[in-house]
């Protein structure tokens, strides 16, 4: 029992709480949490396994296949495991918690919570992919319907939802391009794929993995993919153009039809990476510009959560000419019943086990159904409005420039440059990102290579309020002010994160890199054994 308080009185002035500071006083959780191997003690258990009826006996394991020593996993009670991971979760800044516009090119939009409920329902989570078709008509219907929605959104003729994510969808499109030319006997001849430096690295990497030589177009003086370079590159060896539009600069290439025409005239196919589709939903479509294939990242444009780097989901959309090569099985509908068609002799085959990352297909379906055509268009327009609003704000910050296409609008994101600030202060874009963490928000520089010096790509999407955008711009303005007036604060950031600056030197040397606890113990701690 505490002693009763003596009655006190305060004046309204004393009772008044001061206004919030202009920028929030953020402190990331820092539990100074141990590694999981340092927790628990022998004999502790986190979960029990069902005991078998003793009457059924045990299986005989041949000596050569029996495990000699039990795996040195942690031994922890259930609450210790939970507490450890919840502490780690607090030391993580999901998109639900921050104004996540700093992860440009990734379309960090709100993932509606109701959609998560659908995928946790046992009627999705506890479905087996080899059940009889008549027991899974609901989920097959969702897959088929989502395909129809994406057909309309892309203008294409057929869709496959099998790829595991955006890069897997890029690869799937390249595999279909390869199969298409192989079927025509042209694969030996057509061994080159053309892409652009401002497209995702996976466009180049997937084409190379699939066996193609990669030709990369660089921007012209205005930042558009160089059409003269395209004309020089294209020819009888061209299998395909893989291009993003708008590119990761946020600049829309107004000559996209001409690009497609030039490649088509050379006999090549055109594949549209629609990772940046969010700003053009319902405005223009891959097919309208003449593309043969396109893909979507469902975790970007269609709001499925990014999940620390997946599971994501990809969608491939193709013209009728490419349809025979789609991954198998396809989902077919006869007007009353859905079924899986595995009898597709020209198919590129399986891109992943079973039929796709189904939970994300369900979420994407629910998201589109909740918006409809009007809502998709509102999402696109608002994303673009937000982007140009943020551009307007950021443009006023000292040290920032907006390379290329001067005076032209940007679509759903902008690649900015801190080159001036770097020249003036010596600080890098990465330093700004580390300082941004102190204000409770995430910031990533941009994909390599840094064609734009000291790059920063911001993509506000439709999810954030005007106040959010004002706050984000104010954070950047404050960091720029500090960079000029108090650079040491930026240089030594972060100050309010879970940890301080990492010393990455050990990551590139085989003598010191430590991908696991046992590697760390052997190499760094010098422990023998194991």
């Amino acid at each position, binding site marked *: 029992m505490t002693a009763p308080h003596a009655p006190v009185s305060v004046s309204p002035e004393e009772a008044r709480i001061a206004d919030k500071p202009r920028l929030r006083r953020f402190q990331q959780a820092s539990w100074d949490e141990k590694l999981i191997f340092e927790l628990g003690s022998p004999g502790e258990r*986190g*979960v029990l396994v*069902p005991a*078998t009826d003793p009457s*059924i006996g045990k299986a005989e*394991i041949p000596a*050569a*296949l029996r*495990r000699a020593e039990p795996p040195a*996993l*942690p031994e922890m009670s259930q609450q210790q495991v*939970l507490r450890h*991971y919840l502490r780690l*979760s607090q030391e993580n800044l999901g*998109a639900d918690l*921050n104004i*996540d516009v700093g992860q440009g090119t990734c379309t960090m939009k709100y993932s509606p919570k*109701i959609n998560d409920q*659908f995928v946790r329902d046992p009627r999705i989570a*506890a479905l087996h*992919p080899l*059940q009889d078709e008549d027991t899974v*008509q609901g989920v097959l*219907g969702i897959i088929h319907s989502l395909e129809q929605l994406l057909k309309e959104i892309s203008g294409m003729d057929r869709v496959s939802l099998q790829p595991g994510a955006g890069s897997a969808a890029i690869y799937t499109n390249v595999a279909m391009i390869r199969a298409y030319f192989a079927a025509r006997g042209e694969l030996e001849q057509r061994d080159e794929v053309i892409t652009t430096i401002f497209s995702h690295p996976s466009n180049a990497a997937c084409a190379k*993995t699939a*066996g193609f030589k990669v030709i990369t177009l660089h921007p012209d003086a205005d930042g558009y993919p160089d059409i003269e370079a395209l004309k020089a590159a294209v020819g009888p060896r061209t299998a395909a153009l893989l291009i993003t539009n708008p590119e990761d600069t946020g*600049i829309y290439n107004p000559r996209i*039809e001409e690009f497609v025409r030039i490649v088509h005239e050379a006999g090549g196919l055109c594949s549209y990476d629609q990772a940046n589709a969010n700003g053009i*939903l319902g405005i223009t479509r891959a097919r309208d510009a003449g593309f043969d294939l396109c893909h979507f990242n469902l975790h970007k444009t269609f709001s499925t*959560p990014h999940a*620390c*780097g*997946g*599971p994501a989901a990809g969608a491939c959309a193709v013209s009728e000419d490419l349809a025979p090569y789609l991954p198998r099985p396809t989902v077919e509908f006869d007007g009353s019943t859905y079924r899986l068609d595995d009898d597709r002799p020209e198919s590129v*085959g*399986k*891109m*992943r*086990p*079973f*039929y796709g990352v189904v939970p994300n297909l369900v979420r994407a379906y*629910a998201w*589109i159904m909740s918006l409809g055509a*009007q809502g998709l*268009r*509102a*999402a696109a*327009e608002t994303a673009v*409005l937000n982007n*140009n609003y943020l551009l*307007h704000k950021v443009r006023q910050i000292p040290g920032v420039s907006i390379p290329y296409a001067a005076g032209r609008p940007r679509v759903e994101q902008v690649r900015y440059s801190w080159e001036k600030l770097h020249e003036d202060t010596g600080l890098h874009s990465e330093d700004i990102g580390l300082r941004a*963490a102190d204000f409770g928000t*995430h910031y990533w520089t941009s994909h*390599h290579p840094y064609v734009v010096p000291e790059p920063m790509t911001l993509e506000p999407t439709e999810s954030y309020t*005007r106040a959010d955008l004002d706050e984000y711009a104010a954070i950047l303005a404050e960091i720029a002010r500090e960079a000029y007036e108090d650079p040491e604060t930026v240089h030594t950031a972060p100050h309010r994160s879970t*940890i301080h600056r990492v010393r990455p030197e050990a990551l590139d040397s085989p003598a010191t890199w*430590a*991908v*696991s606890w046992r*590697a760390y113990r052997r190499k760094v701690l010098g422990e023998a054994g194991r």
Partner: protein
Amino acid sequence: MTSSQDSVHPYAHPYIPNAVPAVRQAMLEEIGAASVEDFYADIPDGIRLHRPLDLPAPLRSEAELARHMEELLNRNTSTRQALSFLGSGCYQHHVPAVVDEVVNRSEFLTAYAGEPYEDHGRFQALWEYQSMMAELLDVEIVNVPVYDGFQAAGTALRMAGRITGRRRMLVATAIDADKLSRIRDYVRPDHDVTVVPVDPYTGCVDLDAVREALAAGDTAAVYADTPSALGIVDEALPHLAELAHDAGALFVVGCNPLTLGVLAPPSAYGADIACGDIQPLGLHQSFGGGNAGFIATRDEETLVAEYPSRLFGLVPTTVEGEYGFGDVAYERTSFALREEGKEWVGTAAALHGIGAGVYLALMGPQGMREIGDTILALTAYARRRLAEVPGIEVPYADALHFADFTIRYTGGKTAAEIRADLKDRGIFGGVPTGGHEAAYCVTEVHTKADIDRLVATLEEIVK
């Protein structure tokens, strides 16, 4: 500039705050734009869609959406409503509640690619996943998850191809046809895949046939799955490793990590690269959408250099006593080098790695041993009991099976007919693998009574 008439009427959807007309107008005014159309000025009119998308009318309220989805979900019958004996690459295991609690946290579910400063938890959880998998697999290197076990196998083989510079890949165990399809597609530009059929009577590796195939030379890798597509844990795998190594090839083994509490990890019998799918480690079936792949090797520079995927490493920070994390040998990756990197890397299945880490921490060595023993015992019991049913044969009798197994119907009915009859009695199982053969699977969620019910039902059906 185009007039604002092309623009739809602002629509203040709950997911789109700035679609509020007054806010939208104020933002436009601040920018100095007449309408949103100004921002689309670079999109030529000729490729503009001059009509609304032809989509169903929106389910505007959350309540309407929930009702619509409920109607669709009601058209599914889950494996909780029926008694399911389905496996073959997607497994029904108990998912501990704590796994779901952790992976459904917004902080993990909605995060993406943050730096160690705002996403320290993601880095630590994934590094701990790598570390626990390394203990399970008895190696030092495990990657951040790739899409699935198919991708992991394809990449593991390409890694072996780059290391040896050779052309041929030999598949020596029974392999899932879809997995083989994925592998063939993936290695096609650089490698040929030869499947050496297993012994039809034992279901096990035909070592003589493998020896013969290796004699032709130019083999980059010998690949085996354990359990194989038939569910067999093959005693010949250590011998297969010797054959591969004698031929200068790498030995690549796809394994089910859930077996490794009791079964030797591939590294113990000579595997240079282990790979597989972590779906059995606490991931829901999700109609086949819950897969994620792992690749594991010794900590040797030549092996590490060939990983395309992310490898998180533990390093110090500028403050003593803090654990920092970062990408090991980032210059391997296509993130760093585009087409000059190894294969490609992108968003894959990281959260599943966090979930599998929680699962392994909950299970510990005892749990992993017990679940392995339980599934082996239940599999053996089911096969023994089914073999007693008139009209059923259980092939490959001498081989150890884990979870998956095959049975053969000797009566008049086809496997498809029997599967349909089972379904009518509330049992999912018996996926046809031939006209009169079918695949079944048991896991720790099954009881003796469940298996007895399957046996009794088949006794009625199989004539």
